[in-house]
């Protein structure tokens, strides 16, 4: 009951911020524009404008963007009480640390998941608009959107939200979640690049990428033929599934760590 109330209140609070709606708008517009660009290049190639591969590329690019702009969702859910100095009032109510952190985290995660739904929405919108001729469109395949969202976007949202949330909660500052996002992006892309190119361990390198960007944009763009790009669903490959499971696991670990280290006191 209390967890649900904490979740509800946090969700409603953020839903009333202009900032939140800006995130929705930006992702919708960027996914729309990327798809519009894809329609143009589809005319000169044999890759369909709505190929599962194209949908996956748009998804991972938008995930990088989301990771950098929407950090305040997790950050403020985790640190707003301390930053507004309301925490002496909250921390003297009879709620458990698990309810408190859990409610706040789930609210942030659900909100981020909804924000990322703007990516398939933007893609579909661009395809429905006049300008995409039937010749460059394959059949409408819900599974392509579903796999991009469920396999690519959601585990990323989970892992990244836990890291942003944890950093903000433990440092008691919402802005730290932005720093965390940038650091995560920089270190992981440099790290994964180094593992792949210097150590010649591509399997490990691809595992280290929290978004799946390296696999989708870097590896598969060369490895897959146009026909494969038009038909294969991203995320059903073993290495990609392993990557997703690893990052969900990391997310769970970060949540456990946060619960242990969080000071529910002044």
């Amino acid at each position, binding site marked *: 009951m209390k967890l649900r109330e904490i979740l509800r209140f946090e969700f409603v609070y953020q839903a009333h911020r202009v900032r939140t709606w800006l995130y929705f708008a930006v992702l919708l517009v960027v996914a729309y524009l990327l798809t519009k660009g894809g329609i143009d290049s589809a005319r000169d190639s044999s890759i369909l404008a709505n190929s599962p591969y194209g949908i996956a590329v748009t998804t991972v690019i938008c995930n990088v963007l989301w990771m950098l702009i929407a950090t305040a969702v997790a950050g403020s859910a985790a640190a707003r009480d301390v930053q507004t100095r309301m925490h002496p009032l909250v921390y003297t109510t*009879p709620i458990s640390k698990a309810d408190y952190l859990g409610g706040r985290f789930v609210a942030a995660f659900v909100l981020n998941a909804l924000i990322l739904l703007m990516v398939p929405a933007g893609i579909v919108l661009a395809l429905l608009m006049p300008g995409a001729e039937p010749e460059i469109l394959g059949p409408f395949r819900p599974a392509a959107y579903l796999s991009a969202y469920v396999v690519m976007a959601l585990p990323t949202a989970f892992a990244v939200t836990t890291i942003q949330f944890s950093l903000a909660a433990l440092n008691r500052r919402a802005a730290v979640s932005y720093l965390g996002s940038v650091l995560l992006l920089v270190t992981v892309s440099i790290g994964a690049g180094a593992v792949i190119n210097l150590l010649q361990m591509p399997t490990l390198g691809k595992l280290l990428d929290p978004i799946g960007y390296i696999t989708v944009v870097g590896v598969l763009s060369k490895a897959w033929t146009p026909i494969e790009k038009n038909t294969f669903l991203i995320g059903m490959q073993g290495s990609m599934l392993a990557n997703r499971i690893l990052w969900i696991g990391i997310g769970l670990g970060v949540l456990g760590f946060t619960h242990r280290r969080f000071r529910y006191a002044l």
Partner: protein
Amino acid sequence: MELHIHGVSKTYANGVQALNDVTLTIPAGMYGLLGPNGAGKSTLMRMIATLQEPDTGTITLGEINVVRQKDEVRRTLGYLPQDFGVYPKVSAENLLDHFAVLKGITERRARKEVVEALLRKTNLWDVRTQKLGGYSGGMRQRFGVAVALLGNPTLMIVDEPTAGLDPTERVRFLNLLSELGESSVVLLSTHIVEDVSELCTRMAIIDNGEILLEADPLRAIDELHGRIWRRVISTNARSELEREHAVISTKLLAGRTVVHVYGDSPPGPDFEPVTPDLEDVYFSTMAGRIGRRRQTKPEAKSS
């Protein structure tokens, strides 16, 4: 229900000793904790409110061990911190409703009634839909009172509640508190003597982390009877007077300096007896004429 504080000490990481072997018994009713700023009042209040832990010593509320059974305490606690904020972009009504759920008032209709009653009681009903960010200091303070009163606490901790209030707000606030004091333990910390003299049936004076006096205010005043003397002097005569007499306080009154002196007999022909008040109790204690500082006084003075 009684609150027992026994042998509580706390030293902060920076070496400041905030509390030194504090022992107090606080019965139901209004209890005043009086002391200057930095005396350790807020530290003690935060400990009782489960937000900090003592280095040594025990705090018990009835059967509850306050340090270990924090959740039990929180079920029955109302806490108004000295310094707190609120979410700026939410209405008083919505935030109070949220706190009501956190405090365990889960049934919707009961909660609606409680929230409405408290908003009326704290005079916020007409502004309940306003965002808290637009509230004045006094309004925010009253919102804090409403939060603290949720769920009829049997232990109420109010830390320097009157500091930022104008006179009207202060009276309204003290009235709210006194209602509660009939059934619960209400612990009020303040540096304003009037807060204690108007409200409290028991009091303690704290300074430098030590309890200097634990008393019934009226009895303490009674015991000073015939021991406080007053003289109006010019300002530059003050230091000379302080050398010769046990001056406990000097005050300005209409541009003149009024000195209160402690003494079992009249200190001199220019002095007139005063009917003591709680301020005299406070200053006599701080000056080491009565209470626990009395024994250690000579050494402290000679240095």
